[in-house]
């Protein structure tokens, strides 16, 4: 896979899975936390990407 977005999503999925598993004991709450961490990572990276594009890339 050479897609930047794909690599970032894969990385975020791995990191969020480890953190959620470590921080929660119940599978249901772990999934919810993992989804929140994953969403936070992806949305933040995507937003920062657009900010850098408008600030430096044009």
């Amino acid at each position, binding site marked *: 896979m*050479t897609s930047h977005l794909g690599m970032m999503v894969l990385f975020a999925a*791995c*990191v969020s899975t480890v953190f959620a598993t470590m921080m929660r004991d119940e*599978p249901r709450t772990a999934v919810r936390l993992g989804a929140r961490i994953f969403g936070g990572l992806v949305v933040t990276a995507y937003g920062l990407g657009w900010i850098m594009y408008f600030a430096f890339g044009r």
Partner: protein
Amino acid sequence: MRATNEPVAATAVATGSRPGVGVTAVVAWLLPGGGHALQGQLGKAAVFFAVLVGMFIIGLACGGRLFAVQFSDILVGLAAISEWMVGVPRLLGLMGGLGAGNVVAATYEYGNTFLIVAGLLNALVVLDACDVAAGRKRA
């Protein structure tokens, strides 16, 4: 969630005949998820093993480099230590001659990131397993 002023001893969980902190730490370092398996948390152990070993394999597949431990360049030395924190997979990579690093590959830096972060995450997993072994966290 435990209140911050509540004594740790009041909420400590008896670990019974499970291995102590030292053994748990060594096993957790050598094999991602191994420490949690020793403490009876097989589900968590399986997740940690699958994700961390998977990240290591992805890193190698992306052309990442397994750095040698040398501190002429401090960042290279720190990256090497981070990679060694993943334990046996790093040792197998060394023995198998893997991780030469493909600098011209588009995914080279991604590969390095996956390899380094896999080790750093395993360091956190080791500390978590030690907390369980010491009774500071529910087994």
